[in-house]
C-alpha cells in the first residue's frame, strides 16, 4: 500500500473524529464491562494512531518502521558534524537572545531558520524514502527530530521571556 508523507491535516482530523464518534467510551455507557474494557483500548489505539500521524517526525519514523526498519530512539544519533555544529550554534544564538534589544524578534528569527531547515529535511526525507534509500531516510528523520526538539526548547524559552517581560 503506498504511503504518503504529505498528509492533509484537516482530512486526518476529520477521520480521527469519525472513528472517535464510534469508538469513544461514552458510546458504551450501557455496555458490558468487557465491551467497556475493549473499547477503551480501541479508542486509545485510535488516539495513538492520530498522534503519530499528526506529527511529521513521528509520521516519518512510523513510515520507516512499517517499511521494516528497526528504530531505537535511545541509541540513535547523527554523525553529521556540520549539522551538529549548526545545532550548537543555534542553541548559543538562543541563549544570547535574552541580552538582545528585541529578544522576541530574535527568537522569531531563529524559529524561521529552523522552520526552513525542517522543510528542507521533510522534502529530502520524502525523496529518499520514495527511492527506497531507507537508511539515508532514517538519518534525515533523526535530524528532523533534532530540529523539533530545539523548536520545543525555543518555545519554552520564549514563554519564559514573555513571563519576564510582562
Amino acid at each position, binding site marked *: 500500500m503506498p504511503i504518503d508523507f504529505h498528509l492533509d491535516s484537516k482530512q486526518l482530523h476529520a477521520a480521527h473524529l469519525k472513528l*472517535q*464518534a464510534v469508538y469513544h467510551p461514552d*458510546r458504551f*455507557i450501557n455496555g458490558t464491562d468487557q465491551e467497556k474494557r475493549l473499547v477503551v*483500548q480501541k479508542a486509545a489505539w485510535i488516539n495513538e494512531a*492520530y498522534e503519530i500521524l499528526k506529527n511529521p517526525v513521528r509520521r516519518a519514523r512510523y513510515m520507516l518502521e512499517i517499511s521494516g526498519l528497526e528504530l531505537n530512539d535511545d541509541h540513535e544519533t547523527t554523525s553529521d558534524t556540520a549539522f551538529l555544529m549548526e545545532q550548537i550554534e543555534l542553541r548559543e544564538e538562543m541563549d544570547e537572545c535574552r541580552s538582545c534589544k528585541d529578544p522576541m524578534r530574535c527568537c522569531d528569527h531563529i524559529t524561521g531558520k529552523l522552520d526552513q531547515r525542517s522543510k528542507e529535511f521533510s522534502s529530502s526525507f520524502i525523496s529518499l524514502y520514495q527511492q527506497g534509500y531507507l537508511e539515508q531516510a532514517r538519518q534525515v528523520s533523526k535530524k528532523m527530530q533534532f530540529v523539533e526538539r530545539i523548536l520545543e526548547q525555543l518555545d519554552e524559552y520564549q*514563554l519564559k521571556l514573555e*513571563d519576564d517581560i510582562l
Partner: protein
Amino acid sequence: MALLQISEPGQTTAPHHRNYAAGIDLGTTNSLVAINRSGQVETLPDSNNQHLLPSVVHYAEDSILVGYSALQLQASDPLNTLSSVKRIMGRGIEDIKSLGNILPYEFDGNNDSNVPRIITRQGSVSAIEVSAEILKILSKRAEQTMGEALSGVVITVPAYFDDAQRQATRDAAKLAGLNVYRLLNEPTAAAVAYGLDQQTEEGTIAVYDLGGGTFDISILNLSKGVFEVLATGGNSSLGGDDMDHAIAEWLIKQAGIEGDIDPFMLRQLLIASRKAKEDLTLQETTQIKLKELDYSISLDREQFNHLIEDLVNKTLRSCRRAIRDAKIEKEDIQNVVMVGGSTRVPLVVEQVGHFFGCTPLCDLDPDRVVAIGAALQADVLAGNKPDQEMLLLDVLPLSLCIETMGGLSEKIISRNSPLPVARAQEFTTFKDGQTAMAIHVVQGERELVTDCRSLAHFELRGIPPMTAGSARIKVTYQVDADGLMSVIAEELRSGIKADIVIKPSYGLTDGEVESMLRDSMSHAKEDIDSRMLAEQQVEARRVIEAIDSALSQDGHELLADDEYNSITTARDELEKLIPEATTEQLKKAIKNIEVISDNYVAKRMNASVQKVLSGKNINEVEI
C-alpha cells in the same frame, strides 16, 4: 446492548424508556444539580427556592446537616462543620499542611489509611465521605423533583484535577450510591451550556474559569457537535478569595493595624473586603466600614483594579501558555466563555476581552453554567437524544510519569494527550531470578519526582524467574475517558500476566471503598448480599442477550465453527447458572464468557472500522 451499537452509533440499550440523568457541579464553596425537565435544562432549587447548596456538612449528635443549615453552624461549631473539602479531595496529609491554615480541622493522626480523616463528634470522616453527603442531598433533590430514580449522573471536576482527585470524586459518588456516567471537565461543561456545540461551523473557544479558589483556562475546538479539549492550564490556588485578601491587606495598611491579627479580626476584614469587591462590580466606589475598629474608608474601582492587577495578569499568563500548548494563535479564538463568580469583576471581563480581542460571553449565570452543561451531557449519555451527535473528547491534564534512578521523573504520557490513551513501556530484571519489581507513578510536569504528585506505587509480582536482563516486562498505562489511570503488566517471553498490587498514594483502596459501602448500606438496613446477587443476575442476562444478538448478526460470518461452539457452550452454561448460582459463581462464569469471546468482540469492532472507513483514501486507511 453496546455490541449492537457498533453498527448503530449513539443508540443505547433501552431506547423507549426515558432515563432521568442529572448533572452535578460539586464545587468548593457551592454545589448545584441540574436536569432536563421536559425539554428545558435548569438547575433545581430546594424547598426554600435556593439553587445553590453550600458545600458545607455539619455533623450533629445524631444527624448530618448539609447546606445552609450547616453553614449557619459554622461559627458556633467549627470543628464539626466541614467546608471546602474539595480542596483536600485526593490529597495526603502533607499536602493539606502545605495549604496552610485555611482548614481549621483536627486531623486523625492514627489511622492506617493514607486518606486524611477529620475528627468529628460522629467519628472521623474523609473528604470523600463528606462529598458523598453533598451528592446524596443533590441527587435526592433531583429524584424528588422528577419523581423517579436517576439512571446516572455526570459530575464535573476542574480540568486541572489529577488522577487521585478524580478517583476521590468517583469514590464519593459510589458512596452516595450514584451511577457515574462520566466525570466531565468544568470548562467543557460550560461550553456545552452556551450551546456552542450547536454551531455548524468549526471554531475554537477559550473557557476562562475564575472561581473562589481556583483558576482554569481551557482551549476547546468544536466541530459539528464534537468538543475537543486542545489544552488546559491554570492555577489551583488562585481565585476570588485572593482578591479579598488583597483588599484586606490594603485595609490593614490603611487602618494602620499592627502586630498579629487574631483569626476573628481576620475573618471580619475578609468579610468586609468581600463585600467591597462585590459592591464594586456595579458601583464605581464603595465605603468599607470596620465596626470593631470604628474605622471607615472608601475604595474606588480604580484603586481596587490596581490591587488585583497582578492576580489578573497571572491568569493571563496561564492563558498564553494554554494557547501555546494548543498550538494555535490567539487570533484563532472566536469566543471566550466566562465561568465562576469571580468573572463578575469588571477588570477581569475587561482584561480578558482585551487579551483575546473579543467580547467575553457572560450572559448565563456564571455560578450555574457548569451544572447546566453537565445536565445536557448527562441527558445525551443517558440515551435520551439518539440523534444528537454530541461527543466530548478530553485530554490528559497533567503528564503521567514514572520515577527513575535518582528520583527523576520520566514522562510516559505527556499532558494534553487526547483521552483515552494507553502507552506501553518495557522493563527488564536486573538480578537473576528476580520475580518482583516496584514502579512509582507520579503526575506532573516537573523533573524531580518530589515536585510531582505521587499517584501510586505498583508492585509487579509473579514474574517468571529468569537470568538478569532476559525477562521482558511490558507495562501498559491506560487512562480512560474520565482521566483515571489503570496499569497492566505482562512478561512478554512467557506471556504471564504479572499480578499488580496497587497502593494509591492518597486514595482509598478498593477494600476501603467496599467496607465504607457496606457500612453505609447496613445503616440503611439493606440486604447487601441479595442485592449483589440480583445485580450479577441482571449482568448475566445482559451478557447473554448481547451474545445472542451478536451471534445472530454475524457469528457464522466472523467465527470458525469451534470458536462459535465454545461461545455458545459458555453461554448455555451461564444461562443454566442464573437461577441457582451464588454471586461468586456467576461472576466467574461471566468472566469466563468474556475471556472466550474477547477475540470475537474485537473482530466485530474491526469489522465495523472497515465500515466506517469504506470510501476513504489510502492516507486515512493508514489509521
